[in-house]
């Protein structure tokens, strides 16, 4: 063993280069997370291997990316965020602030987002947008439905995991939230099946990070539910932004904190407006194809 010491300024580069290097590291840690790898494997199976040529209903396969890339991605991001908490006495006195570390963690959501985009392409290949399985929606609304069901949850789930990891200490919080969201979406979907024309039920259905827009009857007829898929995407993106801002708030100081709170208030207001537009837009009643 040698005890050679070197003195002088270290080869450090403050600012963007350090942040980029940290973000790349977090990205690698996320990609190698067993929960995320499992999520990707299941999604691949569900979209590439599993579906047969005779698929008669889009809703049988399109929730998988939301469940696995979004839900499991949330759990993986939560674990990633919490993983360094035990080392906070050391990590907390480094030059990279906690909000900057949080921002680096938020960037890992780009991976499941990219996976969601690929899954969307595969889905469209499997069931072309022109297919009657989409019901009475126009081509543009059909794309919006798929983006809102496949791509945005894959982005939002991990962001929610980061926010949760920054604020909640309970180790199983992400799993509990996953069950709550799954339960909520299932409940409001069943309610909508019973009362497809009900306005309050529609509000409950859209007051979620994921929503179904169609119902396929045993006869094969497809009913399109109320609400605007495009504004629903806006609502989902606003929820994503809120998750990022809430995560960044932890550890933010002085002017940065003030700015985040102000932006959070504006985003929350925008989210409410977008939800209202999603509720009031689109079909004003359930439409059978």
């Amino acid at each position, binding site marked *: *063993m*040698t*005890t*050679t*010491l*070197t*003195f*002088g300024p*270290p*080869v*450090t*580069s*403050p600012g963007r*280069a*350090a942040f*980029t*290097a*940290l973000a790349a*590291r977090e990205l690698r840690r996320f990609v190698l997370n067993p929960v995320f790898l499992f999520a990707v494997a299941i999604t691949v199976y569900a979209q590439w291997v599993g579906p047969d040529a005779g698929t008669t209903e889009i809703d049988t396969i399109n929730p998988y990316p939301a469940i696995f890339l979004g839900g499991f991605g949330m759990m993986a991001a939560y674990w990633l965020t919490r*993983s*360094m908490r*035990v*080392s906070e*006495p*050391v*990590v*907390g*006195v*480094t*030059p*990279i*602030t906690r909000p900057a*570390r949080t921002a680096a963690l938020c960037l890992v959501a780009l991976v499941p987002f990219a996976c969601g985009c690929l899954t969307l392409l595969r889905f469209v290949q499997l069931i072309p947008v022109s297919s009657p399985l989409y019901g009475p929606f126009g081509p543009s609304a059909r794309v919006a439905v798929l983006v809102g069901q496949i791509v945005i949850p894959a982005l939002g789930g991990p962001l929610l995991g980061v926010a949760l990891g920054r604020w909640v200490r309970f180790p199983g919080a992400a799993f509990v939230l996953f069950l709550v969201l799954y339960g909520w979406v299932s409940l409001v979907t069943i309610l909508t099946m019973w009362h497809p024309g009900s306005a309050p039920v529609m509000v409950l259905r859209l007051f979620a990070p994921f929503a179904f827009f169609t119902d396929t009857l045993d006869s094969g007829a497809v009913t399109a539910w109320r609400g605007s898929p495009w504004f629903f995407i806006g609502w989902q993106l606003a929820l994503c932004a809120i998750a990022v801002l809430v995560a960044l708030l932890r550890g933010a*100081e*002085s002017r940065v904190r003030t700015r985040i709170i102000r932006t959070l208030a504006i985003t929350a207001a925008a989210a409410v407006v977008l939800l209202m537009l999603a509720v009031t837009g689109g079909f004003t009643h359930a439409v059978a194809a």
Partner: protein
Amino acid sequence: MVTASISLRDVGRTFGATRALAGVDLDLKPGVTGLLGPNGAGKTTLLRLLATALPPSQGQVRVLGLDPEVPAERTGIRRQLGYQPQEVGFPRGFTAFAFVDYIALLKEWSQPAARHAEVRRVLDLVGLSDLGSKRIRAMSGGQRRRVSLAQALLGSPPVLILDEPTTGVDPEQRVTLRTVLAELARTSIVVLSTHQTEDVAALCERVIVLDRGRVRYDGPVTDLTGQAAGRVWLADEPDPAAKVSWRTGTGRYRNIGTRVRDDVEHAEPSLEDAYLLLGGGSPEPETAEEVAS
């Protein structure tokens, strides 16, 4: 030439109703300064203040001329700081190399080649060069302690704050550590808290004794040791006149008294004798912060 320095003026820190530090005035220059004191004396609180992990409740702290309460200046301090906390956890699945490398990233070593070379260097300094690929969770307590020390040594920082760095470390490694710190202290301010008085005696030019949040002694180690001259003696039985006495390995009793004695067999005083004479080592209730940690 500007000399790196740390200054504290009337610094105090409270945790609820518990006063951990009160009226601390210190100036620290390059060199090794030892921090002694019983449990709950405020050592960890003082080190956390210096490491920018905790703001003071009162008074003024300046590290390298920068104010840690101003966010931008705090970042400036952290760029020049190495800190080994008393206790640090390690994330699951990390090897020693991966952990130190991650901390190096957070210390803005963004160039992989330079960063990896630096990580290898500090792991070598603490004697872990062969264990870099070993998972930290599988390491012994002493090895984990050295991993946490390695990350503090990254970049040979101008300010190095070490909270009980030698706890659980074997004697050979402690000697190596002393060599490393002595070398670093030529240009850096090294402050270490420890219960091992022999480490302070072997390494530090200056010692600060804290008791109940106040500075009880601040000066050269030799001066503190000198205060015990004539007050340490050996006897076959515990001496009732002694403040402290214990049976040594030779079967004789080492006595330490407050008065200089002429009628006894004197022993060479150690820093530990002087520290005990000063009143250190008397157990006090731990501060709220230390209980929490």
